[in-house]
């Protein structure tokens, strides 16, 4: 069968067309039978020196002569046009195709790379990159803290309200002794529930983190922060967990998984707890209002700044001692194109990270809660908390804090309970100084009323979150201005036991001392027990030293 191409013939230009025609003439002259091939197509392939066709023709009668003629013709054209014959023909074909495409097809260029480049011009800009990054993180931080707060209250009310009541009801149906009731309600529900309260915040935090990560912005943030983090011997990727540490250190520790180098992960995890987490805020607020009045805001800001400064100094020390940079931890930055995050991927990411937190931190908190309950209730029948094992231990360690300006057993006890969660420092002090809360009278409710209340609370939380979310938009304010409730009685009690200087030293100590048990649990889970112990020891040592310098330095300058 002969293949013909009578319908279409691409014009390769005078010089090439002449050589094609000369070669076709040579076929007839040499009496070369092109067989099933079209004469024009075969001539073109021979002139282009197509390896496959050359091999086939060589095996045909008179093939050698035809190849020699073709080679001669191709060299002639190449010498005239200054390029390889096959490149010239390819150029003509591409030109022809381009002409057809331009005449027949009108479509915008696929511009994704260009769009990525344009966005990167701003977000990774030498001067604009940093403000853009802080603006993005500020928005995320506000969304996590503000938007989740109604849901935190709702979860708190759910756990300490209906769930605790249902447990009490079930326990009342059993012949369990009173101490079992107390262990479950005051120990497990209060302890584990205290952690579960933060789950809505974590869900929202991971949701926004997944959005940033899936969109491709996280890589840009790491790029922007890279040069600053190098001062403390880390890479840009370490900055994200440290930012998260302002919310809660536990997810921040888990967020170090995005860092490839184990050495960098460990160093980041050691520095993250120095970022002042939101659990410390109640302590700052109570002491700030009690001792600094209108300057409370400045003092609280100073606590955050001090945490960052101490973290930088600690990072430099670690980099020069036990965590020297390894040669394999070179930071290769990948900047993938921006893309629209997939909702399913974001939700899976959000759920998996939160589930991990609940499973691991919840287990650690459960054990710690049980131990703390036993310590507060032993020996059996103890009437005064100071006579409990907890009170005695607190009294024993209290002298350690004497050089820092606070040596009461109550303060020591509050700091010990703060090991479970920093916000417990305030509640412990409130219980000790103000004689504890009065037993709450529980109004009996039906299961239906409880369920309606839970649903109503969720709707209210959703509406409140929505209002807060909209209020982030400049010019929109849907949230009523409410002042933080001030515990005047506690403030008065604190003023009787602290001076302004010792209160400052106490705040510094709370900022820097041992991370909470959930954070240490996360460090242990990620890096092993030795690094958890290292974190606890070095932070407590730094806290003691800095608080000592603040208090004793203040005394030297006559500020006491």
């Amino acid at each position, binding site marked *: 069968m002969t293949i013909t191409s009578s319908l279409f013939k691409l014009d390769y230009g005078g010089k090439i067309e002449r050589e094609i025609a000369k070669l076709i003439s040579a076929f007839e002259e040499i009496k070369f039978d092109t067989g099933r091939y079209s004469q024009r197509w075969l001539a073109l392939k021979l002139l282009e020196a197509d390896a496959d066709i050359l091999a086939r023709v060589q095996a045909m009668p008179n093939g050698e002569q035809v190849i020699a003629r073709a080679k001669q013709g191709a060299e002639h054209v190449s010498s005239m046009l200054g390029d390889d014959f096959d*490149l010239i023909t*390819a150029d003509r074909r*591409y030109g022809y195709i*381009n002409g057809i495409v331009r005449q027949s097809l009108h479509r915008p*260029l*696929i511009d994704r790379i*260009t769009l990525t480049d344009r966005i990167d011009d701003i977000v990774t800009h030498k001067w604009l990159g940093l403000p853009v990054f802080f603006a993005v993180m500020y928005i995320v931080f506000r969304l996590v803290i503000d938007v989740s707060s109604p849901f935190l209250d709702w979860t708190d009310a759910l756990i300490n309200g209906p769930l605790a009541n249902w447990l009490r009801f079930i326990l009342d149906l059993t012949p369990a002794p009173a101490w079992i009731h107390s262990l479950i309600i005051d120990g497990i529900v209060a302890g584990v529930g205290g952690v579960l309260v933060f789950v809505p915040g974590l869900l929202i935090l991971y949701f926004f983190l997944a959005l940033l990560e899936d969109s491709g912005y996280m890589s840009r943030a790491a790029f922007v922060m890279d040069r600053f983090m190098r001062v403390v011997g880390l890479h840009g990727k370490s900055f994200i967990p440290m930012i998260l540490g302002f919310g809660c250190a536990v997810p921040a520790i888990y967020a170090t998984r995005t860092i490839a180098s184990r050495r960098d992960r460990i160093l980041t995890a050691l520095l993250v707890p120095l970022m002042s987490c939101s659990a410390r805020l109640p302590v700052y607020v109570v002491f700030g209002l009690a001792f600094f009045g209108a300057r409370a805001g400045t003092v609280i800001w100073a606590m955050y700044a001090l945490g960052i400064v101490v973290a930088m100094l600690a990072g430099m020390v670690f980099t020069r001692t036990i965590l020297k940079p390894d040669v394999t931890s070179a930071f290769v930055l*990948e900047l993938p194109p921006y893309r629209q995050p997939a909702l399913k991927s974001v939700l899976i990411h959000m759920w998996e990270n939160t589930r991990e937190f609940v499973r691991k931190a919840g287990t650690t908190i459960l054990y710690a809660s049980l131990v703390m309950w036993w310590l507060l209730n032993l020996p059996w029948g103890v009437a005064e908390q100071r006579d409990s094992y907890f009170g005695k231990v607190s009294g024993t360690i209290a002298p350690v804090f004497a050089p820092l300006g606070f040596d009461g057993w109550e303060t020591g006890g509050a700091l010990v309970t703060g090991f479970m969660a920093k916000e417990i420092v305030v509640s412990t002090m409130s219980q000790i100084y103000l004689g504890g809360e009065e037993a709450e009278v529980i109004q009996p409710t039906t299961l239906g009323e409880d369920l309606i209340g839970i649903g109503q609370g969720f709707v209210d939380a959703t509406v409140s979150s929505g209002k807060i979310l909209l209020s982030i938009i400049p010019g929109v304010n849907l949230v009523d201005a409410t002042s933080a409730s001030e515990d005047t009685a506690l403030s008065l009690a604190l003023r009787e036991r602290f001076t302004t200087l010792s209160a400052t030293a106490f705040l510094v100590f709370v900022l820097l001392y041992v991370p909470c048990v959930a954070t240490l649990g996360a460090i242990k889970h990620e890096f092993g027990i030795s690094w958890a112990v290292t974190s606890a020891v070095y932070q407590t040592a730094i806290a003691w030293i800095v608080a000592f310098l603040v208090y004793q330095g203040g005394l030297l300058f006559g500020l006491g």
Partner: protein
Amino acid sequence: MLTQLVKLLEDKENGLSLSEISREMKAQPTAVLCMIDLLVQKGKLLEVGPDGKCCATCGIQTECNLLAARGKRYVVAALS
């Protein structure tokens, strides 16, 4: 088109990436890539890495993060 592509790169001492070439030539990257492949095959163009060094001699092209992130660049062989 091939001539136009080579001429375009002759003026660029540091070469151009695929996206830059396709933008300059107002053509789809996939179409341009076929032309580039032919020119590289014929020795007219050289593939170089984002740092301007030659990728052709590197044995870890498929694992190179830098190359994956920033892409290859192309220069005219005669100028390199």
